[in-house]
C-alpha cells in the first residue's frame, strides 16, 4: 500500500509547526515525543503503521478551527482521529501530517428525551450515549461491535453499522445534526433537533466521508425507546443455501427482524470451542434471528419465523426462553472474531456487501479462492442486510503470507462487486480498499466524488491518501470538457 510521498518541506519545519500549535492549544495538548507519538501509529488496521509528525489534542471547537485554518494557510496535512478503532486505516497517520485527536471532546452535552435526541461531543463512545439515556428506557440504536471503545464522531466518519441496522438503520439514519469545522477554519452547523436539514444534504455526505471533508466537533443523534422485549431463535441448516432461503423467506413474509446473523461451519466451531454457546456442530450454517418489540408481537413473530425455518429445512430450532439464554445465543456470534483469531497467529477481517440471494454463490466462490490461496477463511455474515465478514487466517511470520492473505481478500471483494454488491458495508475504504475503488467506480464516478472533496478542501490537506486511489488536483478536476464544434446532435428529439 503506497501512501503519498511525504513533503520534505513540511517535515523540515516541524519545530515551527509545533510552536504554532502551542500558541493555539495548551502545551500538554501537543505531543511531540517519539515514544508518545507511537501510541498513535495505527488504528484498528494494525498491519500498517506510521508515526505521525505531531499529535494535537484540542479541547474546544475554537481551537480546532484555529488549527485547521493554520494548516490550510500553511499547507500542512491533517488526519482526524477518534478512538482509533477503525478497521480500514482511515486514521493511519502521515509522516508529514498532524494527527488531530478528538479524545478530549468527551462530554455528553444534552439529553433531550422529549425531542428524543442527545447532543454530545464527538469523542464520547457509542455505548456511553446509551448509558446516558438508558435510565429512562432509551438507547442509541447503531451498535458496531467496537461500541465500548469507538467514538460517535468516528461512527459518523465511517457511517458505522452493527447487527441491528436492517431494522434500525445505519449511523446516517440516526444522526440529526453536527457542528463541523471546515478546512479553512469556518464553523458550520448542519441539521439539529429538527428532522429535515435544509439546503443540500451536507450532513448526509459528511456521514461516511472518512475524515476527508471536515472535522466534527459536536453531534446530535436520535435515541429510541428500548423495545419491551427481545427474543432470539437459533437455527441450524445442512446447507448455506437453505439458510439463505430462510432469510429470503422471512423477509418475503414481511418480517424485518431486529437482527439476523449467519455463521459458517468454521466460525460455528471456533465460537463454540471458545464460549460454549450451545451451537449445533453438525450444520453448515447457523442463523440467529432476533425479534424485538412488544411481548405480544415478539411471540407472534417468533412462531412465524420458526415455522418458516422449518419449511426451509432447519434441522435445529431453539427459541431463547430467557434473557440469559438470548445473551448466550449471541455470545458465540459476538466472540466470533477473537474465537477464530485463537486458531491462527493472524487474521484479517474483510467487509463486503452482497445481495442476500447471492450468498451461496459467493460462499462457494470463496471456498475455491481459499484453495487457490491455500489459506483458511471463516465467515460471519449480517444476513439481514447482506454484509459479509470473511476472516482470512494467516501467519505473518511466514514470508509472503500476509501479501497472499491481502490478495485473497481483494479477490473476495471483487467477487462481491461482480455479483452486484459493494466493496465495503461498514468498515470504510480507508487505505485498505483504496486501490480497489476502480472495481466499483469509473474514473468519472471518482472524479465527481473528488469534486465534492474540492468544495470542502481544495488543497487535499484533510486525510490525503485515503479512500481515493488517485489524487487529482482540484484545478484539474474543475476544468470543463466542452463538446463543441458544430455538432448538431441530430438524435435529439426537440419540440
Amino acid at each position, binding site marked *: 500500500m503506497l501512501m503519498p510521498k511525504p513533503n520534505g518541506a513540511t517535515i523540515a519545519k516541524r519545530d515551527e509547526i509545533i510552536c504554532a500549535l502551542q500558541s493555539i492549544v495548551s502545551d500538554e495538548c501537543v505531543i511531540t515525543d517519539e515514544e508518545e507519538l507511537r501510541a498513535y501509529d495505527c488504528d484498528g488496521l494494525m498491519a500498517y503503521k506510521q508515526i505521525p509528525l505531531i499529535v494535537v489534542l484540542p479541547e474546544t471547537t475554537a481551537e480546532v478551527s484555529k488549527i485547521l485554518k493554520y494548516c490550510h494557510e500553511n499547507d500542512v496535512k491533517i488526519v482526524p482521529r477518534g478512538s482509533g478503532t477503525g478497521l480500514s486505516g482511515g486514521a493511519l497517520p502521515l509522516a508529514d501530517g498532524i494527527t488531530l485527536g478528538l479524545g478530549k471532546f468527551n462530554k455528553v452535552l444534552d439529553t433531550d428525551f422529549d425531542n428524543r435526541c442527545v447532543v454530545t461531543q464527538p469523542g464520547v463512545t457509542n455505548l456511553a450515549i446509551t448509558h446516558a439515556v438508558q435510565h429512562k428506557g432509551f438507547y442509541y440504536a447503531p451498535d458496531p461491535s467496537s461500541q465500548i471503545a469507538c467514538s460517535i464522531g468516528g461512527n459518523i466518519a465511517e457511517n458505522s453499522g452493527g447487527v441491528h441496522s436492517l431494522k434500525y438503520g445505519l449511523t446516517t439514519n440516526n444522526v440529526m445534526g453536527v457542528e463541523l469545522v471546515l478546512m479553512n477554519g469556518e464553523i458550520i452547523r448542519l441539521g439539529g433537533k429538527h*428532522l429535515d436539514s435544509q439546503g443540500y444534504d451536507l450532513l448526509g455526505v459528511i456521514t461516511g466521508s472518512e475524515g476527508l471533508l471536515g472535522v466534527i466537533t459536536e453531534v446530535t443523534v436520535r435515541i429510541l425507546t428500548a423495545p419491551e422485549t427481545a427474543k432470539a431463535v437459533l437455527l441450524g441448516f445442512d446447507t448455506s443455501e437453505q439458510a439463505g432461503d430462510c432469510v429470503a423467506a422471512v423477509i418475503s413474509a414481511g418480517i424485518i427482524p431486529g437482527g439476523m446473523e449467519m455463521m459458517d461451519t468454521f466460525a460455528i466451531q471456533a465460537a463454540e470451542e471458545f464460549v460454549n454457546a450451545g451451537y449445533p456442530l453438525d450444520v453448515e450454517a447457523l442463523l440467529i434471528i432476533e425479534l424485538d418489540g412488544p411481548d405480544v408481537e415478539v411471540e407472534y413473530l417468533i412462531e412465524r419465523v420458526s415455522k418458516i425455518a422449518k419449511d426451509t429445512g432447519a434441522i435445529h430450532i431453539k427459541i431463547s426462553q430467557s434473557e440469559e439464554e438470548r445473551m448466550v445465543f449471541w455470545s458465540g456470534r459476538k466472540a466470533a472474531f477473537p474465537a477464530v483469531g485463537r486458531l491462527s497467529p493472524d487474521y484479517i477481517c474483510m467487509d463486503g456487501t452482497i445481495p442476500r440471494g447471492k450468498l451461496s454463490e459467493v460462499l462457494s466462490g470463496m471456498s475455491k479462492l481459499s484453495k487457490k490461496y491455500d489459506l483458511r477463511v471463516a465467515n460471519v455474515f449480517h444476513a439481514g442486510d447482506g454484509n459479509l465478514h470473511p476472516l482470512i487466517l494467516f501467519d505473518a511470520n511466514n514470508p509472503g503470507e500476509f501479501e497472499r492473505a491481502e490478495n485473497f481478500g481483494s479477490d473476495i471483494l471483487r467477487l462481491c462487486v461482480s455479483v452486484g454488491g459493494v466493496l465495503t458495508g461498514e468498515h470504510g475504504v480507508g487505505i485498505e480498499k483504496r486501490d480497489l475503488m476502480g472495481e466499483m467506480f469509473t474514473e468519472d464516478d471518482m472524479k465527481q466524488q473528488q469534486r465534492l472533496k474540492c468544495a470542502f478542501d481544495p488543497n487535499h490537506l484533510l486525510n490525503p491518501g485515503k479512500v481515493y486511489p488517485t489524487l487529482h488536483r482540484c484545478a484539474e478536476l474543475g476544468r470543463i470538457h466542452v463538446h463543441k464544434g458544430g455538432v448538431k446532435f441530430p438524435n435529439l428529439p426537440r419540440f
Partner: protein
Amino acid sequence: MTKIIIPENNDQVLEAVQWALGDKAQLDVRGQGSKLGLGRPTQADHILDISGLSGITDYQPSELFITANAGTPLKDIYAALNEQNQQLMFEPPDYGSLLGGMSDQGTLGGLVACNIAGPRRVKAGSARDSCIGFHAISGRGELFKSGGKVVKNVTGFDLSKLITGSYGTLAVMTEATLKVLPSPENTRTVLICWENGSISDKLGNQAMKEALVSTNEVSGAAHLPAKIAARSDVEYVKSTGCAITAVRVEGPAPSTAYRCAALKAIFSKYGDVEELHTKKSKKLWKEIADVSYMAANQNSAVWRLSVPPTEGANVVRRILENCEADVMYDWAGGLVWLQANETDYASQDSVRQSVAKVGGHATLVRASDELRASANVFQPLGSYMAGITKRVKDGFDPEGILNPGRMYKGI
C-alpha cells in the same frame, strides 16, 4: 426560442446536457412537472423533460430495493410495490392538490429531487434515508453514479444523500435505487377528541410527545386544530367539532391491537378516545400527508416549518402574534403547516425569525410565482453555508445550467 427536449434514453440526455453546456444554455430539468410549484421558479432557456426515461429496471422484492429510470411515473412504482405487498417506507406525500395541480402525478426522479416525506418520517426517515444509489449526468456533461443496490454500503462519498433534495440543481438523475420494506399487516389510529374546541395546540403537542416517548413504536403523530379537523373527509374527524390528535401504529394485528390499547390508556386523561381501523386510518393519514386541508383557497400562502418537535406549538404562537393563519402539526409537532391569507415581506420575516430562534427552517411552499421569484423560498443561508453550497454546486454544475435559481439565487 425555448426548446422542449424530451430524450428517450440516457445517451440523449447526455447529448442534451453537453449541447446546453456548449451553448451556455440553461435547462429547466423536470419530470411530469407536478412539483414545479416547490422551490423558486426556474428561468431557463430550454426545458429538459426526462419523463421519457421511464420504466422499472430492477425490482427484487426479497432484496428490498427497486431501481427505476428517473422518469418512471410514481403510480407505476406504487403499482409494482403493491403487487408484492411492499412500500416506500417514507410515505411519499402527494402535493398535487395542495399546489393547485392534479393528484397522482409525479415521477421517481422528482420525488427524490425534492426529498419529501409523509407522516412516517418520525419512524422511518425521509426520501434521503431510502435513496441508496443513482445514475446521473452532471452539469459538466458527464455520466456518473454513486451508491449501489445494497443498503449497507460505505464505499465512497454518499452522493445519494446529496442528490436527494437538490431539486435538480446538481445533475440530471437518470436512474435511482430506493430501498423498500414490506407493507404493515395492519394499521390502527388512536384519536383524541379534545372536547374544548379551543384547546391550546400545546396540549396536542404534549399528547403526541407522550406517544412518541412510549414503547409503542408510533409511526405517525399529527394534531389537527378544530378548524382543520372540520375539513377532513373522515366522518368522525370532521363531525365532532373538536380538535383532534391522531397517533398511528402499524405492524402485525396482535401487536397493533396491543399498542393501540396502551395508547388509549395513556390518552384517556385528555378526553374522548376513539380508534380508526385500517381503511379509515389510511384515508386520514393520506389527508395529513398530502396536506389536503390546505388545498382550497389557492390564493392563500402555505408555509412548511421544520422545527424541534417540542417547539412546534411555541413557534406557532409567536407567529400568530403577527399574522392570521390556520395551522396543523405532523411529525409529533416537528412539521408545522401554516396557511396564511396573505404573505407580505413583514410576515415572512416573522416566520423565519420565529423558526430560526428554536433551530429549524421554514419553506414557502405555496405562493405566487412572482413572490417565489422575488423572495427566499427556503430559509436563507448564513454566509459560510452559502459559500459551501455554492462550491458544492460548482463542483457539479460549474456553468449553472441546471435548474438555475431553483433553490437559492445563483443555485
